[in-house]
Structure formats: structure tokens, C-alpha cells
């Protein structure tokens, strides 16, 4: 049988972002998948030469609009470590609140897109309807829906007052109830199972060998979550990494679904324990040396490496984003699949191309 090569992307209805895959297929079966990147590459790590270390906070927020706050938090943590300063407790709790709100909206966004990829339009609409409540919280507390821009080196810029705490708690009750209502459909529906169970399997060994991160890693049975490092206020909060053992698309979806509810719980814990005090400490001095910081994004572990030379401009900034780590596993998941399952499995790693290419 002759094989043929089918281009998938860069402009594809199922993908909001451009990524290109060269699929070698025989009949309907995928034999090999080779990613081609570069459609979103901007080279923003290089902007450290043009922007000083405080201005870079605004740049790293725009590595990815969906998890912008978490990128900035990671960058600030790396610099804080280098400058030997500690964000005040209230700032650490506020960072947890905003980062978990980002996780909720990112997971709901992804679950919606995932449903859309399967052709389950009404589920997509339902999930995005719930997500708008989280966007409202973001807008009410930070002034912007998507890029909240709350981090500065040394703490946060904005505060959440009593009224807003009450508002968040009220909205989260609705979010939790509505998400739980959808659990029956999302996790047990016949169509959903048919499209996801046993599709795009990544075993535990493969996941570790190929360096998978986040829900892709946890969906393959590895209990690793960077929040266990205890950065920000996570050291005081109570949670366990969500793990599924199937390693297939369904397992990855289940991890994200359960993490959505877990994040609702974490926001509640953080709101309950929110200490009084300052929002930020002054970031004095010029950093020198090297540092790394890791945090857990909705898509997995993100690593920031910073090298500074004692001036206000950093020497080198390197961002390793979770999707960058999840693309090699994708090349293992796709072979053997039918062509019709490719979009769903590609989506199951929650690809964020603007993160990957920066």
C-alpha cells in the first residue's frame, strides 16, 4: 500500500492557533506525525535587551494570554529569588487566587474546545457560558478580562476587598454547581467515551521518557504537580495532585475536569486564609547571577531560567513552556490512529502554540 503525506494545519477549523503537522498516512491510518512550528514565533525572550527587568513583566504576561498571570508570577518569583526578597503573605495568597482563577477559566476553555473538536457544540457553549463568570471575576478584581497584569517584582499591584471576596465566593458556588452538572455528560456520555477512550494512549514510561508535563503527565499516572513545590501560598493550602491512569484522551480530559473543581476549592481556601498586610515589597538593587523558577500552569510545568549581569537588563531569559514539552509525546500518540481522531488527540495535550514558540 502506498503511503501519502497529508498536511494538517496551519489554518485548521479545530485549532484556534496555527500549528502544522505532516501526517504520513496509509489508507486512513496515521503512520508518522511530524510537527512543523514557527507560525507564532516572535523571539520575545530576546526582548530582554530592549526592555528592563520590570518592563519584562508585561512582556512575559503576553507569552500566552490564557495563563498570562501565571507566567508573570513565575518570572517575578525567579527575580525575587535573585534579589533575595520575599513577597508579603497577602501578595502570595492573592497570587494563588488569581492563578487558580486562571486555571479554572483555562480548563473550562479547553474542555469547551475539546467538546467542539468532537462536534459536541452544545457542550462547548455550556462550558464557555460558565467560563464567563470567571472572566467577570477577573474583570471585577483586576480590571481586565484576560491579561490581568497583577504581578510586580516583589508582590502584586492590586488588592481584593471584602465586597469582592463575597462576590467571588458567590460566583464560585454557581460555577461549581454548573460544572458538576456537566460531569455526567463530559465523563460518561457514550459519544464522548467513544471518541476519547483508548485514543492517543501515552503510557507512564513513555510520558516520563518524553518529558511530558502537566495533565498530560498526570493523565498517564504520574502524580507530579509543581504546586507541590509550595510556591506562593500553596505551602499552606491543602490539595492532592489529580491523577488518572488511562493515559488516553479521556484520562487527560478527566484530569482537567477534576482540576477545575480542585481549583475552585483552592480559591476558597485562599480566600478564607487571606492575611492582612502589604501588597508588595520594594524591589531594590540590580540582580546578578543565575536562577530558575518553576510553577504549575494549566497546561503543566513552566520553567523560567534567568541570567543577570548586575544591570537593569537581563542577560538571558529562557522560558520552557508546558506545550513545548508535550509536543514530543504527541509524536508518539498519533501513529496508529484513524485520521478522524487526529484533531481530538492533538487537542488533548491542550496545545498552546504561542507558549511553545514564544
Amino acid at each position, binding site marked *: 500500500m502506498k503511503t501519502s503525506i497529508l498536511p494538517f494545519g496551519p489554518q485548521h477549523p479545530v485549532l484556534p492557533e496555527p500549528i502544522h503537522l505532516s501526517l504520513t498516512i496509509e489508507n486512513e491510518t496515521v503512520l508518522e506525525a511530524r510537527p512543523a512550528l514557527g507560525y507564532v514565533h516572535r523571539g520575545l525572550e530576546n526582548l530582554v535587551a530592549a526592555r528592563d527587568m520590570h518592563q519584562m513583566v508585561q512582556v512575559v504576561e503576553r507569552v500566552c494570554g490564557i495563563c498570562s498571570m501565571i507566567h508573570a508570577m513565575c518570572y517575578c518569583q525567579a527575580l525575587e529569588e535573585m534579589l533575595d526578597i520575599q513577597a508579603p503573605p497577602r501578595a502570595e495568597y492573592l497570587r494563588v487566587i488569581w492563578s487558580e482563577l486562571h486555571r479554572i477559566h483555562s480548563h473550562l476553555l479547553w474542555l469547551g474546545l475539546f467538546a467542539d473538536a468532537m462536534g459536541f457544540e452544545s457542550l462547548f457553549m455550556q462550558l464557555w457560558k460558565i467560563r464567563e463568570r470567571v472572566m467577570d471575576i477577573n474583570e471585577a478584581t483586576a480590571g481586565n478580562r484576560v491579561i490581568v497584569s497583577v504581578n510586580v517584582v516583589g508582590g502584586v499591584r492590586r488588592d481584593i476587598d471584602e465586597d469582592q471576596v463575597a462576590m467571588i465566593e458567590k460566583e464560585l458556588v454557581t460555577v461549581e454547581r454548573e460544572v458538576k452538572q456537566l460531569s455526567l455528560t463530559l465523563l460518561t456520555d457514550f459519544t464522548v467515551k467513544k471518541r476519547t477512550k483508548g485514543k492517543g494512549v501515552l503510557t507512564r514510561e513513555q510520558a516520563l521518557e518524553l518529558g511530558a508535563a502537566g495533565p498530560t503527565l498526570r493523565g498517564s499516572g504520574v502524580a507530579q504537580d509543581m504546586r507541590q513545590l509550595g510556591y506562593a501560598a500553596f505551602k499552606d493550602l491543602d490539595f492532592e495532585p489529580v491523577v488518572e491512569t488511562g493515559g488516553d484522551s479521556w484520562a487527560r480530559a478527566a484530569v482537567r475536569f477534576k482540576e477545575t473543581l480542585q481549583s475552585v476549592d483552592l480559591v476558597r481556601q485562599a480566600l478564607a486564609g487571606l492575611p492582612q498586610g502589604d501588597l508588595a515589597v520594594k524591589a531594590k538593587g540590580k540582580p546578578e547571577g543565575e*536562577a530558575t523558577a518553576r510553577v504549575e500552569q494549566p497546561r503543566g510545568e513552566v520553567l523560567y531560567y534567568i541570567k543577570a549581569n548586575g544591570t537593569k537588563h537581563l542577560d538571558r531569559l*529562557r522560558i520552557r513552556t508546558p506545550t513545548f514539552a508535550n509536543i514530543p509525546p504527541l509524536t508518539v500518540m498519533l501513529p496508529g490512529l484513524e485520521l478522524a481522531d487526529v484533531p481530538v488527540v492533538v487537542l488533548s495535550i491542550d496545545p498552546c502554540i504561542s507558549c511553545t514558540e514564544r
Partner: protein
Amino acid sequence: MSFIATPVTANNLCKDAQALKARGFRFVTMTCVETGPGEFDLIYHFDKDLDMVHWRLAATDREASPSLSTVYLAAFLAENEIQDQFGLRFADLAIDYQGKLYLDEEAGATPFCRFSRASITQTDSGGDTEGGQ
């Protein structure tokens, strides 16, 4: 949590990485830092149970560095990225995009190298040393 990177040599890189892999370490990523004209540091990051290990390998653009993708396949993406941005070469790269992973011909080569092109105006003004490409 200070940053310590253990030096490794090009000859031992793959052998040491095999040993690390056998101990259950996961490849996180690798970083390239330009330290001088044509001189680079390659920093490898590994992780096991939330503990990180960093390695540092000195490299130049005159000769090819050994590729970690022969041990950890996942390294191919990071190594291709470094080929694009810094013009380094890796021997035995598992999937080689030939410096065209991100960049098209019009973009110009090695956009992340500062010393080679900006050595004349190497000041701390942080001016437009890049972006003109």
C-alpha cells in the same frame, strides 16, 4: 534554592545522561546562553520528584556539540530551537530541521546572538541591538 550547574564534558554527556535516565530523571529542557563571541553555555535541566539537576556544557559555534536526543528524544525540539537562535550545530540530532524550525530565510540567521553582530556598539544602553533584522 540557589542555582548550581555541574560541569560536564562533550565526551561524557551522553554516557552521564544514560546513567541519569536510569536513575529515573526526566528531561525538562535545555538552555543556551551566549557567554562571548562564538562561546556558549549549554545548560541542561533534569527533574526527579520535584528535585532539579542542572548541567553545564561549554560549546562553540565552530564545532558540533553532541546531541542529547540520542538519549532523551524530547531534547530534539530544544536543540533545534538552539540551532535556529544561536547557530550552534548538534551531531546526530534525531529530527533535524536544519535551522528552519522557527525561522524562514527572510528572518536572518542567529537572531539571539548579540556579541557577534553588536560587538561594535556593545553598551549597556540596551538599545536596539536586535529587531533590525
